[in-house]
């Protein structure tokens, strides 16, 4: 999963961490505050981004180790054990998937997902590949090639980019980002997967700490069904869905200069009822299929909508539906109340 979009930074000085509420118990994670600007937060726990390329420069490298030393109960001992090891097993470089004509779309998706799983989910706290969501698609595809070249653990956003790259050219398959914002124990969590659509069915590709919040088979009849499946999975981890953002289909041409449209439709799950959400998602799915939607680079930016309609300002003012939605927003009758906060005091956050 990702945190908020990291601010741009130029320096990579080693982290100086001040620790608050730190516990070394086996069931605990503790929140860290950094004296300098953070790269991002993953449900209250900071993470860093490698911007130095490969090999990773010494300041980024040292920062990674300082960070994990603060997180792990064995701290510096664990760090020293690995860094000073004279022999470390060589993790095999997984073979890059190659498409064969005999493969079905589902087979290919399984192959791509298997490849991403072989890279592993990145638990180190340092994201190795910088992904700027506003970058042109062609630039992000270059990063995907780097991910394959360097063969390192990845997180959810990197998996989306890699998934796009590895499914480029499969024109019967459409890909689009699905972003989730959830709440757990007073913290916000962000996650993103790559929604896929083929021949009337929806599924997903992705990477997550949780097995049921990443890939989904191409069996869901509607986009609403797919998102409902994710919501159900989130509930198992006591996460309450706050927002869902659905993007537009990503072009198959890897040389396209336009950026990915990440949030064409933004649904406030805490305000919309389950049925309304499903209706909006299904409408968006139909519109995408009919290819009548244009990215925000081709029109004015899309604001968050509770109803999903893109109305001109004049229509918006006069729309009874919009008024109803606004009234509905103010009332608590359709608002989904967040689950009670976890009462566990040792600070562990179920991150996605």
């Amino acid at each position, binding site marked *: 999963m990702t945190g908020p979009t990291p601010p741009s930074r130029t320096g990579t000085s080693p982290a100086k961490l001040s620790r608050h509420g730190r516990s070394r118990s*086996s*069931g*605990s*994670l503790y929140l860290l505050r950094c004296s300098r600007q953070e790269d991002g937060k993953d449900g209250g726990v900071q993470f860093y981004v490698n911007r130095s390329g*490969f*090999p*990773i420069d010494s300041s980024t*490298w040292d920062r*990674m180790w300082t960070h*994990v030393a603060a*997180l*792990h*109960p064995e701290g510096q001992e*664990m760090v020293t054990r*690995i*860094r000073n*090891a004279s022999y*470390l*097993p*060589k*993790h095999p470089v997984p073979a890059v998937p190659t498409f064969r004509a005999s493969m079905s779309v589902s087979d290919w998706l399984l192959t791509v997902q298997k490849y991403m799983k072989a890279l*592993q*989910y*990145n*638990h*180190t*706290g340092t994201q*190795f590949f910088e992904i700027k969501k506003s970058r042109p698609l062609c630039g992000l595809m270059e990063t995907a090639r780097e991910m394959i070249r*360097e*063969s*390192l*653990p990845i997180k959810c956003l990197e998996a989306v980019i890699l998934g796009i790259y590895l499914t480029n050219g499969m024109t019967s398959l459409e890909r689009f980002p699905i972003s989730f914002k959830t709440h757990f124990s007073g913290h916000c969590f962000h996650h993103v997967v790559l929604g896929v659509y083929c021949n009337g069915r929806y599924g997903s590709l992705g990477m997550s*700490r949780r097995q049921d919040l990443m890939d989904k088979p191409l069996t869901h009849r509607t986009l609403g069904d797919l998102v409902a499946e994710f919501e159900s999975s989130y509930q198992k981890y006591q996460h309450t869905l706050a927002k869902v953002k659905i993007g537009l289909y990503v072009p198959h041409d890897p040389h396209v200069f336009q950026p990915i449209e990440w949030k064409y439709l933004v649904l406030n799950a805490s305000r919309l009822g389950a049925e309304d959400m499903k209706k909006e998602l299904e409408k968006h799915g139909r519109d995408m299929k009919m290819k009548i939607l244009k990215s925000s680079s081709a029109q004015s930016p899309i604001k968050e909508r509770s109803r999903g309609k893109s109305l001109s300002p004049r229509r918006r003012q006069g729309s009874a539906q919009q008024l109803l939605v606004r009234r509905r927003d103010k009332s608590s009758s359709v608002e989904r109340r967040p689950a009670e906060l*976890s*009462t*566990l005091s040792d600070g*562990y956050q*179920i*991150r996605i």
Partner: protein
Amino acid sequence: MIKSPIPGMEPACRKDKPKLISTPTRGDRGRQKSAQQELKQRQRAEIYALNKVMTELEQQQFEAFCKQMQSQGE
């Protein structure tokens, strides 16, 4: 009697020729590339060793959390 030279007016023959900066040879570049490759391999090995440890930690913490929640529920 030797007159001291006027500052700024040195004889042409004593003009120092600029020293040639040695450009990296093909061999140097090859060695540098090889060293970088070795460093990358070592970093990759350490990253995966670290990731194994941190994945296990996350799993332990998650299981402990679930047990705690279960016992609280009971």
